[in-house]
């Protein structure tokens, strides 16, 4: 009613300027106040990978704070980075060792006070000090989950000899033309680097000459690949159908394909297996409470969360107690021992590609893809 009257008065030119301003101010206040009213609680906002937004991975948090945090989902760290950079407000993000620098350099992360994390002492020591966890003397990413990147292959469709001589080379092998699925990413460059004999550090900082050396390999791969996958379900379905016989994969793929009864094996390539390590970073871009952020991270690195992650997702966890309470069968199926330190030490930990190096790798791979398409 009031509203109608006001509009009427305005139309008849009977509203004084002061009234107008007061009304506009009231409206403005209303607009800014609205989100506060709409938000049910003052929860923190967590920017997560899809599938990680479930309460089992943060036991106790919801009980303590009344509800789970608000989740937003991203599909790739680059997407998440661009979104936060353009103003998305969140308190916690889930980067990996190779991507966390971007967030740190962008001034988005704040160091985590590990003394506030009750589970921190049980975090595997090697992970507590890993590159990417500690940056410039402060913990910018609390390690949570880790795993491998390797080749998954159909044992029934790949030459049996391969089982005794597992190699990254299968992703570049014309014998399997049209039947391989590399991932859609720069890791292909690093893998090709391994194949031409570069060491585990060199592959993350290749010179222009070295890039030119791997170019023929990558161009060949672009020709023989069925597709580059950007979501694990893509190669998962293709492998189940027999359309693809070998793919770049994370541990979890072995678990899901084996459960479907598909004969697959996760290779331990002679050139080395990759290890990735991801974790939670506290961000300064949100409006949430810092204590709640620490509670959330602490819940994630609890042994119960770890047990769930190992058994249900097939990934490694940062809490060493988790490996003691996880079922031995699931550990064995994944090829984990109760002591993950050894595995961690063997693997080639992904290193960050920062700044120009990132541009160089990305554009080089874009070049390869574009050339294959033309």
């Amino acid at each position: 009613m009031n509203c109608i009257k006001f509009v009427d008065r305005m139309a008849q030119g009977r509203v004084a300027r002061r009234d107008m301003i007061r009304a506009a101010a009231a409206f403005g206040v209303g607009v800014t106040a609205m989100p506060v009213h709409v938000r049910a609680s003052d929860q923190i906002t967590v920017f997560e990978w899809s599938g990680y937004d479930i309460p089992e991975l943060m036991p106790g948090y919801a009980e303590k704070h009344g509800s789970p945090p608000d989740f937003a989902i991203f599909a790739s760290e680059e997407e998440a980075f661009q979104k936060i950079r353009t103003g998305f407000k969140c308190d916690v993000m889930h980067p990996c060792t190779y991507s966390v620098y971007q967030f740190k350099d962008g001034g988005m992360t704040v160091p985590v006070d590990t003394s506030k994390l009750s589970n921190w002492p049980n975090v595997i020591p090697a992970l507590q000090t890993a590159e990417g966890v500690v940056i410039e003397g402060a913990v910018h990413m609390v390690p949570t989950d880790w795993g491998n990147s390797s080749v998954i292959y159909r044992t029934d469709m790949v030459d049996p000899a391969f089982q005794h001589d597992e190699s990254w080379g299968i992703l570049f092998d014309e014998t399997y033309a049209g039947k391989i699925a590399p991932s859609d990413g720069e890791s292909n460059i690093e893998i090709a680097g391994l194949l031409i004999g570069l060491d585990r550090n060199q592959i993350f900082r290749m010179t222009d000459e070295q890039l030119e050396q791997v170019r023929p390999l990558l161009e060949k791969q672009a020709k023989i690949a069925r597709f580059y996958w950007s979501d694990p379900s893509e190669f998962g379905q293709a492998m189940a159908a027999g359309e693809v016989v070998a793919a770049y994969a994370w541990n979890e793929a072995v678990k899901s394909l084996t459960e479907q009864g598909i004969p697959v094996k996760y290779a331990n390539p002679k050139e080395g297996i990759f290890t990735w390590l991801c974790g939670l970073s506290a961000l300064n871009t949100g409006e949430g409470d810092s204590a709640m952020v620490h509670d959330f991270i602490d819940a994630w690195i609890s042994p119960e969360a770890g047990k769930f992650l190992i058994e249900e997702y097939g990934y490694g966890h940062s809490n060493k107690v988790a490996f003691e309470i996880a079922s031995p069968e699931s550990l064995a199926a994944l090829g984990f021992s109760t002591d993950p330190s050894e595995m961690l030490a063997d693997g080639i930990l992904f290193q960050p590609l920062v700044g120009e190096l990132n541009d160089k790798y990305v554009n080089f791979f874009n070049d390869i893809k574009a050339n294959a398409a033309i």
Partner: protein
Amino acid sequence: MTSPAPIVRQDSRIQRFFLRHEWARGYALLSPTLAVMVLAMCLPVFMLAAHSFWTQNYLTIDETFTLANYEQALGWLWGAEGAKPIYIRLLWKSMQISFGVTVTTLILAYPFAYFLAFKVRRNKNLWIILISVPFLTSYLLRVFTWKIILGFNGVINSGLMSLGIISEPLEFLLYNPTAVLIVLAHAWAAFAILPIYVSLEKIDRSLLEAATDLGDGPFRRFWRITWPLSVPGVIASGLLVFIPTVGDYVTPKLVGGTEGIMIGNIIQSQFGKANNWPLGSALSIVMAIAITIVVLIFLYVMSLGRVRAK
């Protein structure tokens, strides 16, 4: 009521102003649209243009004016040092794919629109709603449906195999430019049908009877009357399909495989992984200008053709 109501109500100053000035009424009516247009269209385009003259410095942007991005994108044309041909060649290829999509879509849409305009007597609205039903689901879902149809174990392959026509699944159905073409043509079909339908529906039926009366059989009548009168709709549909598909990146990413990549994928990568917004902006603008030029040439040729027909 105690006081008698005035017979003629005196208009307020604002009302009088609007009464007197037709342009003011027009702009007042347009202003919400205009505001949205300025905010949602002009501003982003302006930002894009501005970015294209800047330089990315890891996480910061150097706002010194430079043409380096354009040199990177186009330099190959005049042999600039270090400029790569991929952007231009990919743009050209994207246009070829889009052209293919446009032609395919029009070939599919025209008979449908014709049927709708001339053969459907009752419930035309129902038909039009039915055309748009697939659009109630998300685009991604429709792409995935095509993956199911064209896939290795998909509808077509398992159908052909169970009929014994093939023994091995056909691999050329998915993950190549043809798959991109099929999916895009399907996705844009409804957008193409409607303008053609409208132009056909508008044709005075007595023109067709007159042509018949003057000796034309059905086919000749189509080519001499129906087709030329529906050309404006066909052109509108063609542009409606061609312009947005050149820059598409979702479809090539999902069904294009390694050969089906288009310029949109590279641009998207510049705004994402490569984190080079200025180059991405320059590529976007080059693409937009290239599309505009192609469209203008096309329209010019069409108008020449029509002048010559006279």
